[in-house]
């Protein structure tokens, strides 16, 4: 891996640019990843050779487009090891997938007095759909808390998940704390109590090998744009038995069998959940991202990021001016690192780092309840991916040192 990282970087032309007169260091991968030329090429190729609407089309382009689209589904299926491609539904992204589950399965099973259990580290996309469902149904929304070192508190999980629990919804990897949650254990726990479990894989699928059957999750949602695929495409995995009993989410073309004036019947899986023209080129691009990541190997992707974390995290933790959130043990930390610098607001940090060409995010990271729980309003966040290097980590460290210098006295002196 280390040997060919420069080759890998060549696949990402966007990285090869100056920002504020400095070479760009892109560390906002948890928000969205960059796309290799293989992915943009696949979009252009699709549009310039096969573009047509899929299914039902008899002509050659429609057949080719349908094949491209369904091949992409099979690629995604294999990437997460779903039992069959009909269990893979194309969505707009993680948020769309989670809303789908809450609005169909959730609407169907949740009744007054039932419990929905999520964790305090959830992204708003895996929080508000359940919160609003609970409000609507007079159900109870419970939060699993954290251990002292910022991991999911499994003892608390065992307390919170009860026989009243119908749905457990948990991030596989946190977009703030940099933790990888024990989803398989949580699935076991949920199933013991007769609940189903929904995994939010937005931060996991792009960075780690994921096997939905081994995890034994009932639903699992993720986004293409965080795994080098196009924007506007994602996938929802669901077990066939559940998907079959669920009502459709949206209504329109392609998701029906028969439509009469006053009633309709629904198509088989996965089409029942794909109303209207889908993001066909997006699916093709996602398939190409899957190919790209599979060629490198997800274990290698994870190892590459781990090496950066092993290098960087101890240095950040050792800095007395920094507060680093989530586990401080690099072995327990993914490439998503949220931190604050004493006396400097995270927005000021992000602006200052940007002046140095280092792109990080600042804010609540769509996790306001977590911020409140941690007694924070916002943090800075650096997040790494396959194309980042130890040099990128060094650039972050240097830029952070200069930022501290600037805000403590540098700027005033400079003027």
């Amino acid at each position, binding site marked *: 891996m280390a040997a060919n990282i420069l080759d890998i970087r060549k696949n990402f032309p966007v990285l090869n640019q100056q920002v*504020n007169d*400095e070479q760009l260091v892109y560390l906002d991968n948890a928000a969205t990843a960059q796309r290799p030329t293989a992915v943009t090429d696949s979009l252009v190729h699709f549009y310039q050779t096969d573009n047509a609407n899929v299914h039902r089309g008899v002509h050659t382009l429609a057949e080719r487009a349908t094949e491209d689209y369904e091949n992409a589904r099979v690629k995604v299926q294999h990437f997460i090891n779903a039992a069959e491609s009909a269990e893979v539904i194309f969505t707009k992204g993680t948020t769309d997938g989670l809303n789908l589950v809450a609005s169909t399965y959730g609407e169907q099973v949740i009744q007054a007095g039932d419990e929905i259990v999520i964790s305090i580290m959830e992204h708003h996309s895996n929080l508000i759909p359940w919160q609003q469902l609970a409000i609507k149904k007079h159900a109870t929304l419970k939060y699993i808390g954290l251990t002292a070192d910022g991991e999911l508190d499994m003892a608390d999980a065992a307390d919170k998940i009860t026989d009243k629990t119908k749905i457990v919804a948990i991030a596989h990897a946190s977009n703030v704390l940099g933790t990888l949650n024990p989803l398989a254990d949580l699935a076991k726990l949920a199933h013991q109590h007769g609940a189903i479990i929904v995994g939010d894989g937005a931060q996991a699928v792009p960075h780690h090998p994921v096997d939905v059957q081994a995890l034994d999750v009932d639903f699992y949602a993720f986004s293409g744009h965080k795994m080098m695929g196009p924007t506007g495409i994602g996938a929802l995995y669901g077990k066939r038995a559940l998907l079959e009993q669920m009502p459709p989410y949206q209504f329109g073309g392609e998701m029906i069998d028969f439509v009469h004036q006053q009633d309709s019947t629904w198509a088989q899986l996965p089409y029942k959940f794909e109303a209207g023209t889908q993001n066909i080129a997006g699916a093709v691009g996602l398939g190409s991202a899957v190919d790209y990541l599979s060629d490198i190997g997800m274990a290698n992707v994870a190892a590459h990021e781990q090496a950066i974390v092993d290098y960087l995290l101890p240095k950040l933790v050792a800095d007395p001016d920094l507060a680093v959130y989530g586990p401080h043990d690099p072995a327990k930390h993914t490439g998503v690192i949220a931190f604050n610098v004493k006396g400097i607001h995270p927005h000021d940090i992000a*602006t200052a780092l940007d002046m140095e060409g280092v792109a990080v995010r600042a804010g609540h990271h769509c996790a306001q309840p977590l911020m409140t729980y941690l007694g924070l*309003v916002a943090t800075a966040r650096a997040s790494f991916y396959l194309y980042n290097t130890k040099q990128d980590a060094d650039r972050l460290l240097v*830029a952070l040192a200069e*930022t501290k210098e*600037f805000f403590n006295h540098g*700027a*005033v002196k400079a*003027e």
Partner: protein
Amino acid sequence: MGLSKLNSLYREVILDHADHPRHKHDLATSTNTITLKNPTCGDVINLSIQLDDQEKIQDIGFSGDGCTISQSSASMMTDAVMGKDKETALRMAKTFSDMVMGTKHPQADLDELGDAAILSSIMSFPARIKCATLAWWALQRALLEETPTDEEEA
């Protein structure tokens, strides 16, 4: 090197206001108060104004938490409107928000803003414009006695 460009945003006067904010205290009595939050970053401002019989700003004070820009902007805003009548203060709030959005104003309007005019530099940092406007937005809504929605209230 990149950081030197920061000086164009974080001018000495801005850092000075952030480090030593003016009017950052509670008022004993007040006629108009508001608490606003910036949803994007969670920054909070509590603003209290004491208007006299002629609707002149007799005293003004703020508290809250936020970034350099929002703290400094609040400090400069309170400095600028202290002693002004309500109408003038509202006009200044309009000038300020126009200024940071790039809408041209006569120099006299900008001069009226005092130190706060320096925040026109924020235009080159679009993501930070909201940080600069929060205090002025609070001023406007406090003076117009618009109640914030439940949610904007801390």
